């Protein structure tokens, strides 16, 4: 069975600073990997995903994540955060060939001015 670990429940950071949100997964089979963002009082939105091909994937708002198979990680990074990036971020995994998402416990990113 798959599982996802997000070790950091909260990450405080100042505006324009870089940030990394960590995600590690465990699975005995090949997986797809996802990052979702949840803004206050809103539903989850897909931020980016890794299905195959290039291990570095990017979102339209400056986030990127790199699939590292040897370390079973899919950390999310942004070189310079904005106040508007304040939200809860969830890492998720699904086994290839299925659509069942297994979510981590989430990391709350708090950006301060």
């Amino acid at each position, binding site marked *: 069975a798959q599982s996802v670990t997000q070790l950091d429940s909260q990450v405080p950071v100042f505006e324009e600073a870089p940030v990394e949100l960590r995600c590690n997964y465990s699975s005995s089979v090949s997986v797809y990997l996802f990052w979702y963002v949840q803004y206050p009082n*809103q*539903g*989850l939105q*897909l931020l980016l995903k890794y299905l195959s091909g290039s291990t570095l994937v990017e979102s339209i708002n400056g986030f990127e994540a790199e699939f590292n198979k040897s370390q079973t990680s899919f950390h999310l990074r942004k070189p310079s955060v904005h106040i508007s990036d304040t939200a809860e971020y969830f890492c998720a995994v699904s086994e290839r060939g299925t*659509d069942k998402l297994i979510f*981590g416990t*989430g990391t709350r990113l708090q950006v301060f001015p």
Partner: protein
Amino acid sequence: EAGVVQSPRYKIIEKKQPVAFWCNPISGHNTLYWYLQNLGQGPELLIRYENEEAVDDSQLPKDRFSAERLKGVDSTLKIQPAELGDSAVYLCASSLTAYNEQFFGPGTRLTVL
């Protein structure tokens, strides 16, 4: 295009009372999901529908929870009777078909007193 609609957004009930949540997926989406999100946790799948058929309800506590999607469009999730431990956010998501991106609604926050 309207997103996934859920109602009510908030519900407060006393334990042992029944409660129902409603979800209207994005038009044309055949696959519908109900998730449970406990405080400080990631979403966990309760049930998945392909059109009107429940294809994965293995995580649905069937002694008190039930769901339906009679015409393969909108769906209702019911709890009867509610218990204190049912306090959580109930999320609905839909996708064009299984294996496509899931789009989430804003959720219904249930408080059981």
